[in-house]
């Protein structure tokens, strides 16, 4: 049976997939969670802290959706408020201060669309992360493990390397949202999913993602071990790169496709 892009969307949203917390537990040692944005609250949709990766301290940030329905409610279904992005930025700035590489796990349908989120500057919080992450002078590596929902996902993905699970999706808008805006018909989500080019293969061919991670053995011991050793190698090589910031700038600078007409 051939898989259409909308099947990937459903897989990416599957509540049985490992969540951010599962990656933290299985890949790093002695994770210590830190809380709060020091401004307003602690957003449980985003977890952050420090841990060991092969004998070196790293800062880990993960959007957490939760598995059970109670957990999912507690985590706001992985839809962060501005406080989540501000906590993440605080921890990233701390990582920069202490020279720790940063590893982010992303899994969100998007930044939360609520009244409080708007009142407290959801747009400003995301904008600030995009701006500040672009010049963090430590290696930043982001992995899309499920849903990569628009600006709410990108706010943790201005990274030197962006990896994506085979069945994760990364999109500017949900296929349902796209279908209802363009065709006033959310049941055409499958057509939208196809048109939006949101699969891992699409993201890689558009230059948005550097590596696709296989997930046939998702959740198994070997699966996490594989990611663990890939992370060690990548973090080591990024740490040695003197051109890190220029390359990060160029990585995003070249994304996009336009028609350039000759000026006569």
């Amino acid at each position: 049976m051939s898989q259409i892009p909308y099947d990937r969307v459903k897989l990416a949203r599957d509540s049985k997939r490992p969540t951010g917390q599962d990656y933290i537990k299985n890949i790093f040692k002695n994770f210590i969670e830190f809380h709060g944005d020091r401004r307003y609250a602690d957003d449980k949709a985003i977890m952050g802290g420090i841990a060991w990766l092969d004998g070196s301290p790293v800062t880990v940030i993960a959007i957490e959706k939760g598995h059970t329905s109670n957990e999912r409610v507690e985590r706001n279904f992985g839809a962060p408020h501005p406080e989540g992005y501000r906590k993440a930025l605080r921890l990233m700035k701390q990582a920069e201060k202490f020279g720790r590489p940063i590893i982010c796990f992303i899994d969100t349908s998007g930044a939360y669309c609520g009244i409080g989120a708007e009142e407290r500057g959801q747009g400003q919080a995301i904008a600030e992360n995009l701006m500040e992450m672009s010049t963090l002078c430590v290696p930043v590596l982001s992995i899309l493990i499920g849903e990569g929902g628009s600006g709410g996902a990108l706010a943790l993905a201005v990274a030197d390397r962006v990896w994506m699970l085979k069945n994760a999706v990364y999109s500017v808008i949900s296929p349902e949202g796209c279908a209802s805006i363009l065709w006033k018909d959310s049941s055409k989500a499958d057509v939208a999913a196809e048109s939006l080019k949101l699969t891992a293969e699409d993201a890689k061919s558009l230059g948005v993602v550097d590596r696709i991670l296989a997930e046939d053995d998702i959740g198994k011991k070997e699966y996490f071990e594989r990611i663990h050793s890939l992370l060690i190698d990548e973090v080591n090589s990024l740490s040695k790169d003197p051109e890190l910031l220029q390359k990060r700038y160029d990585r995003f600078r070249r994304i996009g496709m336009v028609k350039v007409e000759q000026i006569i």
Partner: protein
Amino acid sequence: MPLLNFLKPENLLEEGGRSAAPIQSDAGEPEKNCPNCHKDIPLSRLWANQLVCPCGYHFRMKARHRISTVTDKNSYCELFSNIKSCNPLDFPGYEDKLDTVKTASEEEEAVICGTAMIGKQKCCIFVMESYFMMGSMGSAVGEKITSLFEYAIKHRLPVIGFTVSGGARMQEGLLSLMQMAKTSAAVKRHSDVGLLYVAVLTDPTTGGVTASFAMEADIILAEPGATVGFAGKRVIEQTTRQTLPKEFQSAEFVLEHGFIDKIVVRKEQKKFLAELLKMHNGGQKL
């Protein structure tokens, strides 16, 4: 908070105010109905008043018209007009849509940019175009704005930007999303070398533009009554199952919540921007 702050006396543009505003009815002249005071205003009168109703309501303004009102006469010199949208994802209907909006807006892209003088001081300026797919940001918008900030770094110029946007251009999928990161990185570089960036948020500034360069300026201004927010009102109502107050996401609302510096009425903008440039030594560190 008052429901419609832009009706405050300091923002009134003509004697008499809202109720007393005597609207001439020039027989046969085309009129525009004001969504705020519900009066029919003769177009010539609106044009003479920079598309602001006597009641204070700011109508949307085309990008080129705006440039003519805020820059010194004949000083605008366009840059990067050769960068245009294509249909990178073969998104159904996108090319036709582009053709239609090009005709309707008389523009080639949802932003125009260049250099200009404001109060005899040189700056880079970009103005987004609401008539072009509601100022949505695709690859071309991102490329033009990024190029402008890079140009401004090279020539050590301040940037003045007028935003209007419904958000990212979904027909370009992930490529449009990535323009948020690309423009933000360029704004950061411009900021890090000590140059001034002033954003003026106009109606509506939402989505991916709010979540990137609109909110990254050193000084953020807005027009009275402009919608400024991240998520769309309809989406928020669906998510929260709550009815939103009328002033939600207005410029006055975001001012009150601390996310913009000041609301400046249209006819004051040029003078105000000139003064800001002067107070920043033409837009850079002393």
